[in-house]
Each structure stands twice: as structure tokens, then as C-alpha cells.
């Protein structure tokens, strides 16, 4: 019984740790794919602001793309607890026009059952802007 208790303690710890890392990596990968897709989407969509601050419609569409995989929005986030407020879109202007779109996850805590893993400014993806600049 004592031996089993010692062995079980080791195994449970190993399983728990592995689950925590595995689950975190799995969700990180999901968010990495989502930010990649959203940055690509932002890089293709017509940019309807004359400054590096995007319009509300543009920003919301990109945030929805990350959280729901659909610019129109949805009900089930790609990872538990992720909201649009966790998605930061950074538009880089060069010589007065959009040049890059960067999408990042920030302020998100992933509950792995035994601990919380915090994500700040990662995952993150940047794409060169190749859409139509539409400032009017």
C-alpha cells in the first residue's frame, strides 16, 4: 500500500504536469493559428481609416476572426474564456499608409485545471498589408 501510494504520487504528478503542458501547448497552437488567420484577414481587408487607429468595424471584424474564426462573430470561442478584448490589433503605418497588420493575444489566462497560464502579447502574427487603403 505504501509503495503504491509513493508510486501513484509520482505518476499523478507526472500525468498532471504533462496534461498542463500538453493542454497549454494545444491551446497555444489553436490561438497561434487564429492570430495567423486574423492577421492575414486584416492584411487583405480594405482599411477604412486615415490613421493607424482602425475603425471600430475593422477592429471588431479582426477580433471576431481570432475569437470565433469568423469576422461576423459567433458564440463559441476557439479556446475557453477567450474574448475579443483579449485581441490586440496593431496597424503599422509607413509614409502615411498601412504597411503591416499585427494581431496578438494579450491579458488571457488559460485555466489548465491545476494552474493558470497567462498569455501577454503572444501568440502574435504580422502580415504585410496588401488590401485597399480606403481613407475616404
Amino acid at each position: 500500500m505504501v509503495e503504491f501510494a509513493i508510486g501513484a504520487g509520482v505518476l499523478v504528478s507526472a500525468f498532471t504536469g504533462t496534461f498542463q503542458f500538453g493542454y497549454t501547448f494545444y491551446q497555444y497552437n489553436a490561438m497561434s493559428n487564429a492570430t495567423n488567420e486574423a492577421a492575414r484577414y486584416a492584411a487583405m481587408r480594405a482599411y477604412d481609416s486615415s490613421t493607424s487607429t482602425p475603425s471600430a468595424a475593422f477592429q471588431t471584424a479582426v477580433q471576431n476572426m481570432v475569437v470565433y474564426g469568423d469576422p461576423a462573430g459567433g458564440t463559441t470561442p476557439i479556446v475557453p474564456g477567450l474574448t475579443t478584448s483579449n485581441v490586440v490589433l496593431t496597424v503599422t503605418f509607413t509614409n502615411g499608409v498601412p504597411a503591416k497588420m499585427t494581431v496578438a493575444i494579450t491579458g488571457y489566462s488559460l485555466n489548465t485545471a491545476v494552474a493558470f497560464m497567462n498569455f501577454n502579447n503572444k501568440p502574435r502574427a504580422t502580415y504585410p498589408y496588401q488590401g485597399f487603403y480606403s481613407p475616404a
Partner: protein
Amino acid sequence: MRVERFAHPVSKRRLAREKGVTMVVTSLVSIGLVGALGMAVDMGRVFIAKNETQTYCDSGALAGVMKLDGTSTGLANARTAVAATGNAWNLGTTTVPTPTIEFATASTGPWVATPASASGYIYVRVTANVDVTTFFAPIFTSSTTQRVKSIAVAGQVPLTTLSQGLGPYTAVASDLTSPTLGLVVGEQYDIQWPQYNGTRAGCNAGNPDKCFNQNVCTGDQTNARKSTLWKVASVWGSATNGYWGGSANSDIEQEVLNLVQLQPAPLNTSLAMTNGNKNAQAGILDERVNQDGDLTSATYDAYRVSSLHNGRRLFAIPIVDPTGPGTATVISYGLFFLNSNGSHSNYYASGNGNDGYCAIFAGSYVLGSDGTGVGSVGAYRVKLVQ
């Protein structure tokens, strides 16, 4: 009773013999389990690294291919653009070590890092290799790292129709068999013609420039364009001046500044021309020009190497063949360089109301790019092809 007497001593002996077995078995199983679970952790990190480097390559290939313009400067700009994308790996903490950047004229290669001539190179391949440090794999292998390789290929893919991206003007082709359709890079052409006057003295096939109240642009004054000019005068006449957009200010603004088209413009189809509103158009054309950082370059060659340019003075329009009063067939698309006359340009607005609008032919149009593409004419979208 016999059984009990017999069984008791055997049980004791067995217990004594099996003492510590649980610990041994647990230890052996633990090694296997920890190894297997550790491999899962290592593999998770490898998959993340693969995702991150793939994003780096995809983004880099797209950034690079947008810079290709058939010149050696374009190749150099492509290399710079790949390196400048800013994507990192190792959970977003580490810069991707020197990627391999190669170019090709076809998506299947052959791939060349430094082409002797940039002509025809419309594909970029970016390859990134990173070594992911593994923590558990060394239990089973001698290696402490796992190499992760990602590749992306992007190219300038020709388009056969555009429903957004074209300005509401046209340029007229003069030689349907030449690679540039008779247009000469660097020459000024009418993207909107001066007021037609068929009764003006001397207006005939030999002197078609006399059929307009104002001078046509310099590129349209050459002998090579004489028959083209006559076609514009005799086929279009007063029915159109080459404009095909809306006449409301709000429409013109959307068309010129945002490149919103009121009608699609597929190749080899008829485009319905309209009258427009020249006063509004002139002001909005200048507004577009004034959104550029470079208002002083007078030639496209000077403009494309200027560190201030941002592409707003570049304007893509259909290249057409006049087919009847108020109609034209779209032959191709071309990128034109809008003129400027100063630090705050009013080049188009300062002309007379019925002047033609001139612009310099620059080459092919790549959507989203701040320069021309590799092709002589046409519209292209940059796209990942692998």
C-alpha cells in the same frame, strides 16, 4: 481447516518473496510513461515552432513578392521585406535565424538566390530552419534538438477581372500585339481625353489631335499613336472621354480615393463609359496625389526609389480598345503615375475644365503594392502558392 493450515504459510512466503515488487514495477513503468509523456511535450513544442516558422515564411514570402518589379532593386527590396516582417518563433521570443530567400520564374523553380537578371522573376520562396531544444527526447536519442523546417512560396498571380482596385479612367491601347499594348513606360498618356470637337478645322485621320479643343498628352502626340487618336475621335467622339465612373461627388470620391468600382471590369468584356463631373474629379485626383509622401518626383523612376513614396500617386486603370460610342473592350490593366506640381499639388484642378488628364504609364499593377509588378501590363494579386 486443512486448507487454512496449508494456505497461511504459503501466503506469508509469497508476501515475503514479492516485497518491493510494486516499487520496482512502478519505477519501470514510470520511466516509460515519463518518456512517452515527455515526448508529447517535446512534440507540442515542435508543432508550435512549426506553426510559428510557417507564419514567418508565409508572411515573408508575401512581403517579398510584393516588391518584385523586374529590377535588381526589386530583388533587393524583396530580401529586405522578408527580413522585416517581424514574426518570431520559440513562443514568440526569438528572431528566426537567417532565412533562405530564393526567386524563380515558375512556381516549380528552378530557384535562384541571386538571379543574373531580375526579369521574369515573379515567385519568392522563403525557407526557415530552427532547432527546437528538446527536454525528454534525449532519453531515447542522442540529439538534444529537433530541426524544424518551413517553406512558403508566393507569386504574382495574374487576374482576369477586378471588382475593386481600378480607377474610373482608361488608357487606350494602340498595338494589341505588343507586350505593353503600344504604351511606352515613362510616357504621358491621356487617362481622360480633352473635349472632343469634330468640327474643328483640320480634324481628320491625318491630324486627329486637331479633333480636340486642348492638347492631348505628350505620349499621345507621337506618330505611333496617330491612328489611336483617330480611333478615339472617330469611335468615341463626343460620346465619352474615357471616363467610366459615377458623376456624384460621393461616387467619385469612393472611386478615386478608395478604388471602389461601380461596375466590375473583366478582361475582354465591354465597359460602359459615362460622362462624370470633371471639376469634382480634378479636385479628388489631387486629393489622392496629396496623400502621398512624395509630391516632387516628376518621373516614376525617381518616385519608386524615393523613401517618401507610399503608392497613392499610383493609379491602376483599364487599358481599353474603343469599340463604339460610349463603349470599350477591356484589353488589360495598367499602373499609371499621377502628376503633381508641388508640395501641395493642384495639378489636375489647376487645368482648364475640359483639359485632358495626363498620367505616366509605369507598368503592371500588383494589388496592395506601392510599385509596379514584374509583368509589362496586367493586374496581379500576390498569393501563397505553396
